[in-house]
């Protein structure tokens, strides 16, 4: 169980780097945006992992139950707003990609660079 | 045997039965040879498994707000999943996918 306790952090690291790898190695702009979404999700996972308290329950207080352990509400507040901000910024990224496609006729990064040089 | 024990036993049976059907649906969706048979496997067990699992949980919840919510979940799932299955099959049929068409997976060599 000691090892399993670190598994969340390892998955965080792996997901983060899968996202980074997609952004670095794929010239396709939509793929880059999806990679960024994975990167973002990994950060959410890290924060929510840190909120868990052993034997605890979600921080919505129950009437009449004394000395219950509650998980940490602060990371939840941060991530809750970040998810909605994430979708809004993803939409902005998609809008820019759509405009790039209208101007260049492609969403492949190296193709766009080639056209810029000409 | 008390009433509570009977309820527990019934709920056990329903949950295990529901889990079995859900699992059968999953195997069918993976192993069946073409799209329409896969959908057949997934769609029917989806309905039955959902119903059994939710009934099993309802037996445990007693009469409370949770029962109403579970009933609402059951009703909405029973409305939407057959509709989604219908819409999907209809779209596949209209687009010209014939039963037996997608039988073979693409050559693994060609996939990246």
């Amino acid at each position: 169980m000691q090892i399993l306790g670190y598994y969340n952090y390892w998955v965080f690291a792996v997901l983060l780097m899968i996202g980074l790898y997609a952004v670095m190695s794929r010239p396709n702009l939509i793929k880059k945006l999806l990679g960024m979404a994975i990167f973002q999700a990994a950060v959410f996972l890290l924060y929510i992992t840190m909120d868990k308290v052993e034997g605890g329950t979600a921080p919505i207080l129950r009437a009449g139950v004394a000395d219950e352990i509650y998980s940490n509400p602060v990371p939840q507040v941060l991530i809750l707003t970040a998810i909605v901000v994430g979708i809004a910024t993803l939409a902005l990224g998609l809008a820019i990609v759509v405009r790039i496609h209208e101007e260049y006729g492609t969403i492949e990064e190296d193709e766009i660079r080639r056209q810029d040089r000409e | 045997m008390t009433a509570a024990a009977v309820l527990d036993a019934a709920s056990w049976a329903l949950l295990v039965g529901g889990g079995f059907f859900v699992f059968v649906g999953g195997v069918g969706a993976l192993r069946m040879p073409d799209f329409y048979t896969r959908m057949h496997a997934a769609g029917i067990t989806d309905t039955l498994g959902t119903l059994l699992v939710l009934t099993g949980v309802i037996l445990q919840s007693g009469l409370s707000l949770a029962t109403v919510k579970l009933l609402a979940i059951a009703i909405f799932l029973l409305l939407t999943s057959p509709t989604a299955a219908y819409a999907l099959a209809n779209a596949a049929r209209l687009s010209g996918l014939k039963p037996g068409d997608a039988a073979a997976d693409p050559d693994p060599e060609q996939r990246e």
Partner: protein
Amino acid sequence: MITLFGVFILSLLVITAIGIVRSTNLFAAVMLAGLFSLQMAAMFFILDAADVALTEAAVGAGVATVLLLSALALLDDEERRTRRSRWAAIAVSLATTLLMIYATFEKPRFGDPLAPANQHVAPWYLENTPELIDVPNVVTAILASFRGYDTLGELFVIFTAGTGVLFVLAQRRRDTRFARLPNADAQGLRHHLVPRVVGRLLVPFIVLFGLYVQFHADFGPGGGFQAGALVSAGFVLFALLEGERAALRVLPRRVLAGMIVLGALLFVGVGVAGMLLGGNFLDYSVLGATPVAGQHVGILLVELGVGITVTGVLLTIFHAFAARVSER
């Protein structure tokens, strides 16, 4: 046992993420991203974050897939195979992963109540919320009241992103000005009878559920962010079924723009009202007869402002993309 379930879902997450990166078809990648979001929501729920899971559910299932698909409808859905060598990227990612995994051994054990993150401010919030604010949902109390200033900032980020999408996409395309014809694209799914009937039946329930989530936020998981995403999911469903024009007749663009501004103004207005009544900016305790009653009024209004702005922004973004698709 629950920990093992978490480990299982986390492994599925990694497999899905690899699938997203490796698939050469963007449509397939978007479908896998939908699966990724479902798994994230289940994982958040297992980790005791009910509010976060509800947000991920509302955003991921209702809006994200639709937005990605409407963007994809304007682009090519096939990724061109690249000849570029990937070894540098693989090496950098792998090395960083190993370094980060090495660093995690310094982290406090998973679920440790004595971890610094759980010792700093969280116990104070948990202890004082019943007395100072008196709502059961501590997440809502922190979001709307203790850290209201922070939430205001997040709201303005969303506001700015919505405005940015409008700046980028709202301008008409030059070359298609004369070629605009009434086309089948804008008709939605009108001729699919069964989905249309069932979908129309669901729309009021989705909006009703959104309102429940909005106004029940003090007692259960919910709040303006989730409610905004849910209500806009209801309207997106309506637009998919009846065509975008029918949806714009119900909620025209002007109304949506008004909602974006109104929600943000409501939030700021509550803060300024607190100042005028002798408190600090976003200090709600002066708004009611007693400080606790004032907090209740303030939280209700602030969450309402968040809900209105989020609904407005998400629907504006959806319509901006959908208008591009039907112009083609």
